[in-house]
């Protein structure tokens, strides 16, 4: 077998046992790997509560992981979200995916619950459950300090142990499996860390063919100003988007009450570059290297963190952003949800949060102290507790990232249709609505967006399943990756065939959410976006979204996606895609 190992490691923590699963080739053919394959195995238990012993925590690589395929040093972690109740997955970089493959596994399926806090240590086919009670309450770097240098690890911090609904799993100290609370699922199973070392190597079918495909991809990325241009994310990190979002009047400001932040020019990526003299780093096998580490080894914030820890909460201090980022990283919390929850708190309490208070509140959340006991539940539940639901800027209870949907209507639709709740990465319409790739679309219209979003969702499902990086697709396309896929696996495919698999993977996710009762009524945006305008300037006016247009577009999307008018899967479509489903 090329690309895949053909084996999945199933760990039952209740029994401290493990078995090997060998999926049929047709499962690989249909679900590829990564997010697709994880979704396939999550579906069997998706109706279980997130904290059930039967609930699975899945770590899945893709066929390209641990090969010289560009940007393939990624993997997917998936489970059911404690924050939202939908499925929750995170495409995450770092070395863990590669080591899992080298150890001979396509993925790990973890069920059950350990009595005591443990670490799982895997060296090839040797699996050990290590008592980790002594690490209880340890921060990420404290845990890492116990290991040999450059270990490949997945770790939870104190936030997960203390029940933060948006806690992360942290890979290799600075890659984060974020959003809906995967860290809490891991904490519930009493796993403090997973450490993997492999001595094998993933087999590649045709290395020369892979070289040819790589050359094409490198040529395309070199031609991309967004990736490798002087102002692009290779030089400035994802923070390069900060100025752009502000200049387009779509930077969420003051808990989404405004969309432009006057202090943005003093808090942009250029300022970080001057102050912290960052060096480039990134995922294994990546030539873009979008992560930035400061001269004193500070992990510098990414775009979402830069934006939400400034404009959204009214903070004007650069160092506070770096410190807040560091607290979230060390404690293992999602920065988007953490900042958005503070913004919600600020609005409800009608107080500006000072820079010192930002940091102390983050500790309170992570350690579940004082007001942190309420804030750790996320903005939706906090606002509900206070009877002010409108202050929670969430979709399906998940805090929205740093792109105001009133400035990009495709983003408005994709927030609503995302299968992992309020998320920008499922379709990432910023690519065409703002970054002009592959071509520019009119950001202030819903016309044509329903099909574009559907196709983009399918595309990103493929990317997360192969696995590779979404950023690369500002330049490359599935044409080149079809060649990569063939070179690695020996299975001939085309861009459109891969896209078809993406369609199946995405629809499968819709069936999972439907099984848990999610319907069209959940595919909606906060009322604020329909009632209030954003900040307008001469260059662009940010008007409230027209609800009628939004609903029409959503309706079109359902038709195109093959869902019924309630946003639910249909027998006809599931049969067409070969997915198990009962109406």
């Amino acid at each position: 077998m090329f690309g895949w190992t053909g084996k999945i490691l199933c760990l039952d923590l209740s029994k401290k046992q493990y078995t090997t699963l060998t999926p049929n080739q047709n499962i690989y053919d249909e679900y590829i790997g990564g997010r697709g394959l994880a979704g396939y195995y999550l579906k069997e238990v998706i109706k279980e509560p997130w904290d059930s012993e039967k609930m699975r925590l899945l770590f899945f690589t893709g066929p390209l992981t641990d090969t010289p395929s560009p940007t393939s040093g990624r993997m997917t972690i998936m489970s059911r979200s404690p924050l939202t109740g939908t499925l929750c997955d995170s495409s995450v970089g770092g070395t863990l995916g590669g080591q899992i493959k080298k150890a001979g596994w396509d993925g790990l399926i973890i069920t059950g619950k350990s009595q005591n806090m443990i670490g799982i240590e895997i060296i090839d086919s040797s699996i050990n459950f290590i008592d980790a009670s002594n690490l209880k309450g340890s921060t990420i770097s404290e845990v890492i300090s116990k290991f040999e240098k450059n270990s490949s690890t997945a770790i939870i911090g104190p936030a997960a142990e203390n029940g933060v609904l948006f806690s992360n799993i942290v890979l290799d100290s600075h890659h984060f499996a974020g959003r809906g609370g995967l860290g809490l699922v891991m904490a519930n199973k009493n796993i403090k860390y997973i450490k993997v070392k492999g001595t094998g190597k993933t087999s590649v079918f045709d290395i020369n063919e892979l070289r040819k495909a790589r050359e094409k991809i490198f040529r395309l990325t070199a031609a991309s100003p967004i990736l490798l241009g002087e102002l692009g994310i290779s030089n400035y990190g994802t923070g390069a988007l900060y100025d752009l979002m502000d200049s387009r009047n779509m930077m969420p400001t003051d808990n989404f009450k405004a969309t432009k932040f006057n202090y943005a020019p003093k808090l942009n990526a250029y300022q970080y570059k001057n102050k912290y003299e960052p060096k480039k780093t990134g995922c294994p096998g990546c030539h873009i290297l979008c992560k930035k580490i400061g001269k004193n080894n500070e992990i510098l914030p990414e775009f979402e963190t830069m934006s939400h820890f400034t404009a959204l909460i009214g903070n004007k201090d650069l160092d506070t952003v770096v410190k807040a980022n560091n607290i979230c990283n060390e404690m293992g919390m999602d920065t988007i949800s953490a900042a958005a929850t503070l913004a919600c708190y600020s609005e409800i309490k009608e107080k500006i949060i000072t820079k010192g208070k930002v940091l102390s509140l983050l500790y309170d959340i992570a350690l579940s102290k004082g007001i942190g006991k309420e804030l750790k539940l996320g903005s939706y539940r906090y606002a509900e507790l206070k009877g002010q639901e409108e202050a929670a800027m969430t979709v399906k209870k998940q805090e929205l990232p740093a792109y105001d949907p009133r400035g990009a209507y495709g983003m408005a639709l994709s927030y609503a249709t995302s299968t992992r709740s309020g998320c920008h990465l499922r379709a990432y319409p910023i690519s065409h609505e703002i970054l002009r790739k592959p071509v520019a679309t009119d950001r202030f219209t819903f016309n044509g967006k329903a099909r574009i979003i559907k196709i983009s969702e399918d595309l990103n499902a493929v990317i997360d399943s192969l696995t590779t990086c979404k950023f690369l697709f500002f330049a490359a396309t599935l044409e080149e990756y079809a060649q990569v896929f063939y070179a690695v696996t020996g299975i001939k495919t085309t861009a459109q065939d891969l896209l078809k698999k993406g369609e199946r993977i995405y629809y499968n996710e819709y069936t999972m959410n439907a099984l848990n009762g999610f319907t069209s009524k959940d595919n909606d945006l906060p009322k604020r976006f329909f009632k209030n305008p954003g900040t307008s300037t001469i260059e662009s006016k940010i008007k409230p979204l027209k609800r009628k247009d939004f609903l029409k577009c959503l309706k079109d999307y359902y038709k195109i996606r093959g869902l019924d008018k309630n946003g639910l899967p249909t027998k006809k479509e599931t049969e067409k895609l070969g997915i198990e489903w009962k109406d």
Partner: protein
Amino acid sequence: MERLIKKYSKKLVEHGLCNEGSPLIGGLEVELIWNKKDPSRKILEKVINSLNITSILFAEPAEPYFSILNYLSFKANELTIHPKDCETRTFLHDIPVSLKFEANSIIKILKNRKSVIIPKHGIITIGTISPEQTFIVYSSVCFALFVKFFDDYYYSITSNNINEQQKTIFNQTIDYYKNFISKIKKVSSTNNISLKKEDEVIKSIIKTGKLTVDCLMVDSFFGNISYKLKKSIYISQTGSSLDELIGCIDKCPINQSSCAAITASSEFSAHKDIYLNTKNKAILHGHPKFCVIMSLLCRKNNCKFKGQCHIKCPEKRYAKDIPIVSGEVGTGIFGLYRTLPPAIKNKRGVIVYGHGLFIADKYSLENTFNNLIDIETMCLNLYLEKVKENNAI
């Protein structure tokens, strides 16, 4: 969708790529809509419904493209054409051919490519986001075929292997192109005075960009244009069409104190380095066809860099006073931002192998445009001289 379909069917005609009434464009939202009734719709509907796309274009190209298409596609090895120009290499990879105008054959090809050519029928292109993509690819295919024909023609005459069909197309096309280029009017010069105000700069960029497209000196959304004013560079955005630059010009501080211009042209670095190392204030980059063709004409035997001319050519090559350099789009290790800025010092312009012409001027964009026309005319004449030397006319 309807607006975009109308826009690009009109643009195909305006750009001389199709005759009036030829373009058939379909756009798929919830329902499939077309710009006209056409018997081909039945086949194309099957194609669009079999692929995960939003738009499809089918048209018979105008002359001389149609004759070139038919000639090259009947000659194609393994039903694939391999032009050597930069657009093909970077974005299309190759140009597949379907001998049958039949849905299954077309679907099979378009599952992995953005275009297919069908001899005696025309070109089909697809888009995943917008009909604009179908226009861009169509335009690129026409450009690539044109360039390949004249590159091959020169090879045929130097290897004494020319046929009558080639000669006929050559003569017709050269007559057409000579006539076409002779009619292009240069713009009046601004007496070598630099621009002083932002609004003047923006107006000048918009005007010169449109002029460049109107004179067919750049295809689809390629090409770029910039002007340096004080400590900023005003440059066309990536993926913008030079004839539609209103709202598509980025102001980039030279000290990079803002990344808002992350959407600037992929050649921003090359433009910036030219401004930093010369006294130039205006840069125009187009894809005039004979500049590109001339850059390909090297028949050096036993060159150890054969097949890698676009990235590793070590020769100092010229089209008269205009240097020809290697270099790829953007900022990679073989990026033209490394080769172009040093080569353009004290020169009117530089041709980048298989790609296009960059022109710089100390004063105005008008001057760059005039030089563009002069250099293209010069390259056309140079090409004809080379052909003549080989006694083929």
